[in-house]
């Protein structure tokens, strides 16, 4: 499972960076989305993947069983997803404004215009 996730993370990073380097605003946006996903899956898998043992505190217990899945990475990812959602929403609006104002969706052409 960990190996599969490692390949997935690597693939997401590769696709994200490739899209960032394309000369197109929408692809740039999708690249940023993929990079965010890659980071989230990485956080999820880095502490080790535990299957089928939820970190629930049993009745009369003070702590979840020691071999349960770590809940902290999931909390981190939840926060990161919310932040990422807001940031991507802003970036999408910015991309549209840039296209309206500059009249091109090619970031290289914008550089020349400055």
């Amino acid at each position, binding site marked *: 499972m960990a190996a599969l996730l490692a390949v997935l993370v690597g693939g997401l990073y590769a696709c*994200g960076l490739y899209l*960032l380097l394309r000369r197109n*605003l929408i692809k*740039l946006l999708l690249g*940023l989305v993929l*990079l*965010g996903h*890659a*980071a*989230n899956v*990485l*956080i*999820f*898998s*880095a*502490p*080790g993947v535990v299957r089928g043992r939820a970190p629930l*505190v049993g009745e*009369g217990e*003070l702590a979840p069983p020691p071999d349960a899945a*770590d809940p*902290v*990475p999931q909390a*981190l990812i939840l*926060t*990161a997803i919310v*932040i990422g959602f*807001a*940031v991507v929403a*802003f*970036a999408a609006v*910015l*991309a549209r*404004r*840039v296209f309206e*104002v*500059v009249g091109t969706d090619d*970031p290289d052409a*914008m*550089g020349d*215009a*400055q």
Partner: protein
Amino acid sequence: MSGSWLIVLPVLAPLAAAAAGLLAWRAPRTQGALALGGSLAQVGVAAALLAKVSAGGVQVAQLGSWPAPFGITLAADLLGAVMAVVTGVIGLAVTIYSLADIDEGRRAFGYFPLVQVLLAGVAAAFLTGDLFNLYVCFEVLLMASFVLLALGGQRAQMAGALAYVTLNLLSSALFLAGVGLIYGVTRSLNMAELHLRLAAVAASQPELTVALAGVFLVAFGIKAAVFPLYTWLPASYHTPPVAVSALLAGLLTKVGVYALIRILTLVFPPLPGVPTFLLGVAALTMVFGVLGAVAMYETRRILSFHIVSQIGYMVMGLALIGSPEPAVGAAGLAAAVFYVVHHILVKANLFLVAGLANRVGGSFQLAQLGGLAARAPWLALLFLIPAGSLAGVPPLSGFWAKLAVIRAGLEAGAWLAVTAALAAGLLTVLSMVKIWTEGFWKPAPQQTSQPAPLCRRRLGLLVAPSVALAVLTLAIGLHPRPLWDLSRRAAAQLLDPAAYVAAVAGHGADRASPPAREVAP
């Protein structure tokens, strides 16, 4: 618990002003007054916090009263407190300037609350004791800066904002990945706890630790705009209104430098090879930044490139912590802290003065400026103080900052970096002289359109922040001892994190009554 409340206040004050500003959405005037109040309050509480940290050592607050490794820790050491004070000062200066400078369109879209959110994010980044929380603070301040940069933009501003947003989001994604990896290795994100756990990891797996540090170095390197990751900065910082430029130029890259300092002193143990690598990066940053500035003929572009070059000096001071002599490392780090404080005040001021020159002379282009020394001698004086300070002319603050960095570099035997620092210093003089001769001394070009004269009240609001910052620069220059002592104490605290760690852990211990009563039936 008064100490812990004090830590929260430099974040809460601007945040409250921003929230109140959002409620007063249709009344930009009220928003301006609220922003002024928020910034004043931030300066006040940050100064009180600094006094408390200076007298009583590291201050810690556990939000929600969860003990140290579980809850979110806020911790203020001398460095964090000093940076919070400077944040407040720059926020106040920029808010006053904005009252007369920012147009109605931007005000109507919440310019003042956004500035306050940015200030809250920056202060929170300086005061947090938790790595993931640092990421959240970065996102808060970035989001505010994105909107400020793009607000009401024309062509150049939109293109600049795009470059800025893309590269900063890339840096954030890397930072987040680093947070995940570091949690995977240590099962902790509390900086004080990381200090202990990473030392153990470094003993058994040194390569893993260096690789982890590498992720953070790249992420914070983009934010701090070091060579070769600085390209987003000169592409974007000259495009928004000058008040926004001053705010971003003064504070944001320095948040990156702060994060580098924090990571390399508190979080990670001394890493072999990393300081030497940073020293090389610092030398290249100084040289490439200043070469970019020499090639530019627009005041804000020149100043943007100088940010990059000056970041190099700060990173050089930080890199000296790798010196085998502890005293040299402490001197280098103290120089870096001194440099950061001096630079924030001077750089923000230079952008404000460039804005004044634009108001008086009608342009940011050096070719279209001229005769400002004759037309506005007060402006010439206002320019000379920060410009001389940036270039390192004695007895201004920049002279002491550069002297401290270069002296520490000489003691460490870092000849190449010292050479680069001296050469970059000379070229800084050259490009400041270029602005002086072109903008102030040469006769005014014939065809310039004279901008409309400003009313007395607006001019006062525009000039007052520059005068105040110039006075601060002069005061540091003529009497550098207090700030230098503070920097040295901050550096000593950073290099011996035992007090910080004990404060965070101890604070948890005394309230670590087990949560049994909450769980028991």
